[in-house]
């Protein structure tokens, strides 16, 4: 028992470490990861400012900080096992005693740590340029931020199993998901609630995405100083979503592994 726990921790730690090292070892990746969300944030912040709704500039800056994570979840979590399969790395993982759950959790932790500087860069530059009215950090903000990331990366784990089955189409699904989910979840504007310009039916659909709940709660904590007392329904929803997606993802992964050993084409790209 102790040795399995030790192995699990070693695998998760080493995968996180490698993810961080690989992220910082590729300067181009950092440019892309910071540059994309930063430029979008700045463009939208200018738009809000000149449209006469300067209070929304903060939404755009905050959205840029979180968009880096959303990109990381899709491209470096959900699609990762599929890429590993195509490059043969998944074979190496499966033929070792390393638990896949540890690899995925390590990948998530590494992704969170690796994306943190990109996210902070967007927030710092955006704040310096537009000086949006942020409230001081609170416990509610920390909780929401953690639960949002947990739910997001849980979604990444669930998608990674699905993408293993999809094969090459995974990248197209990612492309297809990125913009609509970014839009629906209201990364740069309130997509749910009273300030949302979207019809109720679309708001209902958008609320199924953990990022929507997380963004809405983050905005309320950062710009309207709401605390745990007001935000508990969002915190609870995020906690349930995180737990459900992680459990679903890990179960799906176990299924995919078992099924892959039967069919022969899920875990390795047949040449």
């Amino acid at each position, binding site marked *: 028992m102790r040795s399995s726990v030790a192995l699990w921790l070693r695998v998760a730690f080493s995968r996180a470490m*490698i993810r961080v090292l690989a992220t910082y070892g590729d300067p181009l990746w950092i440019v892309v990861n910071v540059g994309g969300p930063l430029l979008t944030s700045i463009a939208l912040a200018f738009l809000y400012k000149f449209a006469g709704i300067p209070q929304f500039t903060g939404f755009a800056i905050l959205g840029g900080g979180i968009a880096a994570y959303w990109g990381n979840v899709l491209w470096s979590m959900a699609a990762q096992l599929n890429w590993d399969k195509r490059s043969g790395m998944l*074979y190496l993982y499966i033929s070792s005693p390393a638990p896949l759950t540890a690899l995925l959790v390590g990948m998530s932790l590494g992704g969170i740590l690796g994306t943190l500087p990109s996210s902070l860069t967007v927030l710092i530059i955006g704040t310096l340029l537009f000086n949006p009215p942020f409230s001081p950090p609170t416990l509610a903000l920390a909780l929401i931020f953690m639960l949002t990331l947990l739910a997001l990366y849980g979604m990444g784990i669930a998608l990674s199993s699905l993408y293993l089955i999809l094969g090459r189409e995974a990248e197209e699904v990612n492309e297809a998901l990125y913009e609509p989910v970014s839009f629906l979840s209201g990364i740069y504007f309130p997509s749910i609630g009273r300030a949302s310009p979207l019809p109720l039916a679309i708001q209902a659909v958008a609320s199924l995405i953990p990022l929507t709940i997380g963004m809405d709660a983050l905005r309320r904590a950062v710009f309207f100083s709401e605390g745990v007392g007001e935000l508990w329904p969002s915190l609870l929803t995020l906690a349930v979503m995180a737990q459900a997606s992680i459990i679903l993802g890990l179960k799906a992964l176990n299924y995919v592994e078992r099924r*892959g050993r039967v069919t*022969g084409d899920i875990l390795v790209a047949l*040449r």
Partner: protein
Amino acid sequence: MANVEVESLTRVFETRSRRVLALDNVNLEVEKGEVFGLLGPNGAGKTTLIRILTTLLLPTSGRAVVGGFDVVKEAKKVRGIIGFSSSSERVGFDFVTARRNLWFFSQLYGVPKSEADRRIEELASLLEFQDQLDRKLYMLTTGYKQRLNLARALINDPTVVFFDEPTNGMDVFSAKKVRELFVREARVNSRTVFLATHNMFEAEEICDRVAIIDRGRILAVDTPENLKLTLDKPVVMLETDVAGASVGDPRTLDGVVGGTVKLDSESETANIRVILRDEDYLDKVVTLLERRGVKVLGYQRLEPTLEDVFISKVGAGFAERERSLEV
């Protein structure tokens, strides 16, 4: 003591439209400290067998045991004592150093850090890439990446190590080093080295025993010398000018047990390697070829190779067998 035991192993791949028998009632035993070669053309079933033995695939029927553990019922235990490397998988993470990559793979097996550090240095020294250890992977040449790949397969000090076409695309010098490493690992560290290859030279040079496999069936298992001794028929190489003519299947020539044709389309010549029923058929084969418009420029009797053993069993060479699978 057998480290790999395979009993009546069969694997079938089924799709809606096709049913492929990838392994057909395979039986094998590989000893501790043995370099064992699985020799056959592409598509013969070598990779499928290795995937089953490394727990990636389930057999359709039959049983396989690695290091005393059943690959189906005790897959986790098998994974802890094996190493695996093939020329087709990625070596590691491009923007991470060779040392960190090896450390990462050691962690997949729970190797303690001090032990991992020691093994990394030892393997880098054995494979002569110590000076590359602190360079990022993308900076390494293909030859060094391949050496790193082999080091990765040995990082957990495995009891049984599987190599799938390990020297594919490797330069001659690196391939020689790698073959020396395989023999050393078997002799000095008593590992079982299980090698899938279609490289006859490699199989002959380093394998203690070789199993010849074709279309999922093991045709023969023995030492390379004994396998060649079983071939008591003459092997002849005919050099021919095939301009405007077709050699066709050598088996259609009277007196030919089997053969393989290597065409050189630029010079319009072909080397036809045939196994004759006996020496007396040689003149007849030359006459038959000339009747087909193929001019025989010369011929010589050859010492048999492992491919000749293969040809004697199935009638065709590796190239013909691979082409027939493409159709």
